[in-house]
């Protein structure tokens, strides 16, 4: 029975994918139905599994078979592990997938024939992600890690005619592969040194003892490069904002809630191994902090709603990493869970706006009368308040847990507070612009969407909004730390009142600055990129010292970071690698000149050289 359930969990999206892929043309229309019902089946099965094994916390369930038997005592296994960590992830992945797919029915309604392709890819992605989560060993995880990357690549480039989409998918691919190279090496090293890649074996005290300290550091850092690629940690974060070229539901599912969280999950999965190396933990903490900071500051000056959310995702991923690096496993995973809900909610809501206004620009949305979209704005507010960490929304609880974890590291604690400030600033900036700066719509143009489509759009929004409200409470005293205990039985999760006050205070500070800038002073939308400078030079900036210190610094510093990001990290470091590889390829084909005798010269020279070498 357990086995059957596990197979249903991991297999149903694959069945959906294959069925859609092989559907004859006439039946392509039922693709969304197939996709949605199978992912729901997957969710139900994991729920059922949990209900049958409420004690899963104490006794994880594991099955495995031998896959590759090599000569020595080295073999690779295929298997599934069910413990509290995966079950949590399984709930998150399948539930968010389900909502996103329902939403997609409405969002992609105009796509025509492409729709079945879209749902096939979504199913493929869900399959890969669920298997990544359910794997019981590192190699299998790696395999699905790659498959997840492939699905993401296909979905980012879904709107193929747009050159920017193609470019973005290529970039996402190249950058994440760059990180995966490290992961691959880590797998190879661990295979060689341990021979058993099961997570239970990897994280056992014996394995950690058998490896030298340097080896643990090396391996964990190599795994972390993979994590950096997938979870968009600085400086490999650059693919994520570009990945917003994909359809918005895709961004909601992959680039905010699930795939990018895979890196955090992988770190959590091998937490014992990571904890064994203090250098690795420090590295994670430092990179997490950098990422959180860079992401949050960059989010403050974007005008594209998806870009705001993308940078915000980067920053939140950095926060999760900070929690992990600081040694608080449960805080990181708790934040991952709450983040999955409110961020997918935000993305879907922004998708609804984009769908309605046909633009990504928040200023344009405001011009076209975003105020009229009451429901959408309401859920954005729920998600945004949660993201900003305002009591009593989900993000509040998880963020405070992170702050608590950082309590004994003053520098990082300060950095986290700074990040909270920026977060709150850009959230309120978004809300203020969309609601208070909105013009009243001139005419009430009727949208003749069918009621089914309206339902498909609203149902996920409302469900996720409710989720964002209640999930937070599951980690609190009120609910006896249910979620936290679920993540880790030892979790304490006591929140000190001072910390809660600082967190809220910082958030309110962000609100205040946003209020000053966008409601009081009414900063105008920048006309062009250079127009931005003009904003900075406006006289009324000087009116208030408070603003001079914060408002201007925030904007200028963010602008500088944005420039640095675009020019240096993005241009030279990463694209340079891809570019030079391609150039090398072009150079090599120069040898293939089409002249037979040029070929033969090389042949004879090399043959003679080999002979010379052999006789020497």
């Amino acid at each position, binding site marked *: 029975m357990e086995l059957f359930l596990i197979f249903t969990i991991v297999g149903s999206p694959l069945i959906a994918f294959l069925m859609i892929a092989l559907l004859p043309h006439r039946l392509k229309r039922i693709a969304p139905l197939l996709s949605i019902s199978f992912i729901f089946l997957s969710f139900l099965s994991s729920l059922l599994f949990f209900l049958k094994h409420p004690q899963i916390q104490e006794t994880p369930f594991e099955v495995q078979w031998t896959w*590759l*038997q090599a*000569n020595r005592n080295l073999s690779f296994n295929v298997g599934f592990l069910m413990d509290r960590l995966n079950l949590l992830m399984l709930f998150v992945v399948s539930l968010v997938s389900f909502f996103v797919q329902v939403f997609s029915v409405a969002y992609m309604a105009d796509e025509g024939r492409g729709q079945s392709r879209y749902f096939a890819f979504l199913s493929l992605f869900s399959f890969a992600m669920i298997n990544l989560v359910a794997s019981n060993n590192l190699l299998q995880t*790696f395999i699905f890690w*790659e498959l997840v990357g*492939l699905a993401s690549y*296909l979905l980012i480039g879904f709107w193929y005619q747009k050159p920017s989409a193609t470019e973005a998918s290529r970039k996402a691919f190249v950058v994440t592969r760059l990180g995966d190279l490290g992961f691959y090496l880590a797998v190879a090293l661990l295979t060689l040194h341990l021979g058993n890649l099961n997570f239970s074996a990897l994280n056992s005290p014996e394995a950690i003892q058998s490896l030298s300290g340097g080896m643990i550091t090396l391996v964990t850092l190599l795994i972390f490069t993979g994590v950096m690629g997938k979870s968009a940690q600085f400086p490999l974060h650059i693919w994520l904002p570009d990945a917003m070229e994909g359809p918005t539901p895709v961004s909601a599912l992959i680039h905010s809630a699930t795939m990018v969280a895979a890196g955090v999950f992988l770190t959590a999965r091998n937490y014992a191994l990571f904890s064994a190396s203090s250098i690795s933990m420090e590295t994670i903490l430092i990179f997490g902090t950098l990422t959180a900071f860079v992401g949050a500051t960059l989010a403050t000056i974007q005008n594209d709603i998806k870009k705001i959310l993308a940078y915000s995702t980067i920053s939140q991923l950095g926060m999760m990493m900070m929690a992990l690096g600081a040694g608080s496993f449960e805080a990181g995973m708790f934040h991952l869970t709450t983040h999955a809900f409110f961020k997918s909610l935000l993305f879907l809501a922004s998708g609804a706006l984009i769908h309605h206004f046909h633009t990504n620009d928040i200023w344009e949305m405001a011009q076209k009368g975003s105020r009229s979209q009451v429901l959408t704005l309401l859920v954005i507010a729920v998600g945004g308040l949660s993201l900003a960490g305002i009591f009593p929304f989900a993000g509040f609880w998880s963020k405070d847990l992170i702050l608590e974890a950082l309590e004994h590291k003053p520098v990082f604690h300060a950095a986290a507070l700074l990040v909270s400030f920026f977060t709150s600033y850009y959230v309120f900036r978004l809300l203020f612009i969309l609601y208070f700066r909105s013009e009243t719509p001139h005419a009430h143009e009727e949208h003749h969407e069918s009621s089914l489509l309206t339902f498909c759009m609203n149902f996920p929004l409302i469900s996720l909004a409710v989720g964002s409200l209640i999930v937070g409470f599951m980690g609190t005293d009120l609910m006896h730390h249910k979620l936290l205990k679920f993540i880790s039985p030892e979790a304490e999760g006591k929140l000190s009142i001072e910390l809660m006050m600082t967190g809220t205070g910082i958030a309110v500070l962000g609100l205040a600055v946003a209020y000053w800038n966008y409601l009081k002073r009414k900063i105008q939308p920048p006309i062009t990129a250079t127009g931005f400078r003009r904003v900075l030079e406006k006289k009324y900036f000087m009116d208030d010292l408070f603003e001079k210190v914060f408002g201007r610094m925030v904007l200028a510093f963010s602008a500088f970071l944005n420039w640095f990001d675009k020019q240096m990290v993005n241009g030279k470091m990463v694209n340079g690698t891809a570019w030079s590889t391609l150039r090398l390829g072009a150079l090599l084909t120069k040898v293939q000149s089409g002249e037979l005798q040029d070929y*033969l010269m090389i042949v004879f020279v090399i043959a003679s050289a080999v002979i010379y070498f052999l006789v020497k």
Partner: protein
Amino acid sequence: MTSSLFLPEIFMMIIATVFFLFIFLKEETVKKYLYPCSLILGAITMIASFFSLSQKGLIFFNTYEINAFSQSFKLILAASLFLIVTISDRTPSLNAEVKPEFFLFLSTATLAMMMLTSAAELITLFIALELASTSQYILVPLRRGKLLNAESGIKYLLFGAAASALTLYGLSFIFGTAQTTFIRDIATRLPDLLHQPIFGVGFFLTSVGFLFKLAAFPFHFWAPDVYEGAATQVTAFIATTSKAAAVAVLIKLIYLLSPSSDTFTSVLVLLSLLSMSLGNLAAMIQKDMKRMLAYSSIAQAGYLLAGLLSQSPEGYAAVVFYIISYLIMNFSAFMVLARIAESDDNPQIKNFTGLADRSPLLALTLLISLLSLAGIPPLAGFTGKWFLFSAAMAKGHWLVVLIGVINSVISLYYYLMVIKEAYLGKVEGNANTLVVDIKTRLISYAAIISLVIMGVFPTPLIHWIEGMVRF
């Protein structure tokens, strides 16, 4: 009875004769019967090879050795010929009047390759190689139309002639030092011979002819030009069957005669590294699909060499496993290519646009075969590479494994370009649906399933192979 030992070859010869007789028939008759006839004959040879799997013996005055290794390879060769025949019903770039000749030369080439796997004597080996080459020299310029056919034909022939001249020169050195041409006799004298560098030189020069067939660096230059210039079916034959035969011979030669000196191994290491890096890098900028597959096959030759250079039973088994999976994945890529090819028979990568809309099955076949070529788990290509690299790693060839892994990463780039075209591209105007006949459907399903099964449950196959790679 000795003739039963020669069964698969006899069937090949009968087939060749039948196709020869077809030349003299009227064109309508040929049109009607040739293709069904070739399918039946191909299937029969496959069955004959299957039933002679367990035979053992020496014929032709001990120059011809029948054993599990040779018989298994004959089955592989017969199967791959059968596959090539199945996609030869619609040949846009071959004139109808040369179809019988096309099949005739295919079958003589396969006959020669079967002989290659059994030859226990170097001259027999060489002559069989020449028969295989000669048949392929004719197949390449058979293509009609542009001048490219003659150009690729002459390039292939002259390059091949240079390679076989070097082989012959090497053979003369082996003959001069070992004083015999029987492989087993040489093997018994190996301890004496290994002192003499001239034997190593002779061995290397001899292997040039087979490295040429394998398209390994630096004997690969013909491959892109010939792949592009020849008809798709011929290209598929050269890319799959011919390589399998070359691999069989190289395994045999290295297994029995390998001067397992460090210098020889380092030569192989160098060739392997250069093959895979050059192939993958050059493939990235190709527009023509056949040319891209040519470079990709050069890279695959590099991976195969990585298994050969380990010079261990695991390595040889890995090479055989890989060549079987390579045959399947490369063949299915070519099958899709042949279905796509319309009038000019040289599909560009952009011709794959919207394949998923035109024919979901073909697109899926292409996806699986290309991902397998790139070595994405859990497909056969990955498992094969895993065996290859773990054999190389066991002998401490870290560099090869590292570069191999980096190369797999690079290769994914250009395979994905095609997949992206197929799955994300939209056909402009009205997308004409590709009609996929039942035979293609069956082969597609079989290819997909076997690639997945070989990837997920490789153990039975690898056990069978380990039993067969023994002399």
